[in-house]
């Protein structure tokens, strides 16, 4: 075990994978500067800066994966990945199926997601619901350094199309890239969950399987289910509820696609009350999917959800209200307990 910060853990796992397999390469906007450690270890052929040409450099990732490389294509923010929606929707997730299973496309897209640091509605989205709607697509969003390393390792080793989403609030590298220490007048300490930003990582890195959730807290009164920073907001809400004598289970899904159906059903049955918490949009997304699973499996439980329902505002107070903050989670939990 080595203590690592979240972003460091992702790069550590990627670095080990690159050392193990010379076909693993990475390219994207400013990767040589953001990941200078990888650059200094593997050189500019395998750590390649791209122009701001998302559609082309993501499509090129599919092309390279077809001819023997295992590219980890980095898009600075998932919001910018929408400029490359076509290769995601029509190629990366499709070509293996089009070939009747004959062609493997081992492509990883690494993109940063999420808000809580007040960067406005075009730089703070999650969008994992849209990505997870695509068949033959794996979408993961780790909430701790060990899962970040383990899921990156699985992503690189997998022969399919994986979208690896790195939460900006947990990624010290990216917060630093955005200005970091150059102003000591801003303190993210109160919003950055300590348990997600730094933690022990097994060395060598242990792969984390896709579609497998992780119980972060045990309780019998209700289940809070989330992914990414939402998990930490659930932990804060659970602590608040515990003070009132209510014990919550917190389930960290880790993967948005595939979902850990078994574990969702298990905690819902056990607790009888479920609050689905999502930093992505409410409509057509993860929270509705969890509700559908509960109905499909005939689980008898009460259900509510907390997710994003508006364009995420820039103003920090408005952003806080728009995101699934712990007060919103506590309120939803109380409403279920009072039913």
């Amino acid at each position, binding site marked *: 075990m080595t203590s690592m910060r979240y972003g460091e853990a992702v790069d550590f796992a990627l*670095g080990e994978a690159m*050392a*193990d397999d010379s076909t693993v390469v990475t390219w994207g*906007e*400013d990767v*040589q*500067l953001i990941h*200078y*450690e*990888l*650059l*200094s*270890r*593997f*050189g*500019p*052929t*395998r750590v390649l*800066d*791209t*122009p*701001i*040409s*998302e*559609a*082309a450099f993501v499509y090129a990732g599919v092309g390279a994966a077809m001819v023997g490389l295992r590219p980890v294509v980095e898009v600075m923010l998932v*919001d*910018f990945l929408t*400029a490359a929606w076509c290769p995601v929707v029509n190629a990366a997730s499709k070509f293996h199926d089009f070939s009747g299973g004959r062609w493997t496309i081992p492509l990883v897209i690494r993109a940063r997601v999420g808000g*809580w*640091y*007040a*960067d*406005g*509605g*075009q*730089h703070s989205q999650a969008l994992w619901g849209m990505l997870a709607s695509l068949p033959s697509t794996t979408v993961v969003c780790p909430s701790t350094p060990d899962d970040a390393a383990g899921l990156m390792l699985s992503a690189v080793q997998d022969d399919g199309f994986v979208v690896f989403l790195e939460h900006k609030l947990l990624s010290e590298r990216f917060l*630093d*890239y*955005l*200005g970091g*220490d*150059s*102003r000591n*007048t*801003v*303190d*993210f*300490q*109160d*919003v950055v969950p300590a348990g997600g930003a730094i933690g022990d990582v097994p060395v060598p890195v242990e792969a984390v399987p896709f579609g497998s959730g992780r119980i972060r807290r045990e309780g019998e009164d209700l289940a809070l289910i989330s992914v990414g920073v939402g998990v930490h907001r659930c932990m804060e809400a659970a602590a608040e509820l515990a003070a009132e004598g209510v014990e919550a289970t917190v389930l960290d899904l880790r993967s948005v696609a595939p979902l850990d159906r078994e574990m969702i059903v298990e905690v819902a049955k056990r607790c009888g009350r479920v609050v689905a918490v999502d930093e992505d949009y409410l409509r057509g997304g993860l929270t509705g999917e969890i509700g559908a699973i509960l109905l499909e499996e005939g689980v008898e439980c009460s259900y509510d959800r907390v997710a994003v329902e508006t*364009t995420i*505002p*820039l*103003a*920090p*107070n*408005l*952003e*806080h209200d728009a995101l699934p903050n712990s007060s919103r989670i506590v309120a939803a939990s109380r409403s279920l307990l009072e039913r």
Partner: protein
Amino acid sequence: MPGPKASDPASTYRMMVRMRLAEDHLVAAWADGLVPGEYHSGIGEEAINAGVVMHLTPGDTVALDHRSTGPMIARGVDPLSLMLEVMGSEEGMNRGRAGHMHLMDPELRMAADGIVGSSGPLAVGNAIALRQLEEGQVAIAFHGEAAMNQGMLMEAYNMAVAWQLPVVFVCKDNRWSITTYSASVTGGNLVDRARSFGLAVETVRGTRHSDVYAAAGKLIRRARAGKGPGLLYATCHRPGGHFEGDPLLRLTNNPITEIGTLANDIRRGLKAPRGSRADVTQGLRELTLRGGRAARDRARGAMRDPVRRFRKQVAHAQAAAIETAEAETMGTAMRTAREMVGIRPVFGKQGGAG
């Protein structure tokens, strides 16, 4: 405030000073933790912004990129309402929803979009509507040289030419794509590239206002007359880096401490087993080169200040009077904005306006 028809030196200097002061105040507010998220200042672009905006009449549209403060101020947006918006106040021009990357003013028909290259197709759409509904008006798109590698912008050039639209693209070449040196990720020559689309291209040094003004005037008059789209290619500098706190500039400003941090990580990369020595040398070369280029361009930016350069066009006493008056206006706006926003040492939980 559409600006005078001819580039009257006093009005021009006033416009440039207002832009610079607004930026200086916002950069300071960012450092004080009062601007949430990022801030991309347009310091160094004043001569270009003024040279283009002064030709515009009410009804002309302007699609902006992430350096949108300057053109907004130049065209007459109330500084207080802009500052409040950039600082994330609900009293701001977009009720705290936008921030500097998405400033929107429907009356002035100006909109900023943080997605690189998007100003091109937005301006093409503006131009289609203008041609049909308000002939004689022009659509402007501001973008950087890095955006010229974005597919949608090249697609917009083609549409503008194919449909002979009244649009003028303004490329501000500051040599940097976020924190990547543009030449290292760009094929060919950008001016040739623009010409090959069939655009009428004028090239100028963007630090020289009178050259920008003349070239922009030519392209804008042409577009208004229905003679087709153009591209103004203007070189400039970004002494403030990509955004405030730019990691490359931190490296240049504080080499001792920053290199210490970098060196530890790099040493770890070097010592890590199973890396190739040749790759390592090449990797380090790339990093050193990038740092060196950033330092060089920063020095150039400081030397070739467009506002200071233009000051010589105005009598000293008049320039001083303009500076005093505008310092008072902008200073008052920022003081008021700071009072209205209050102290917000932490974003998220205790953040917010007032």
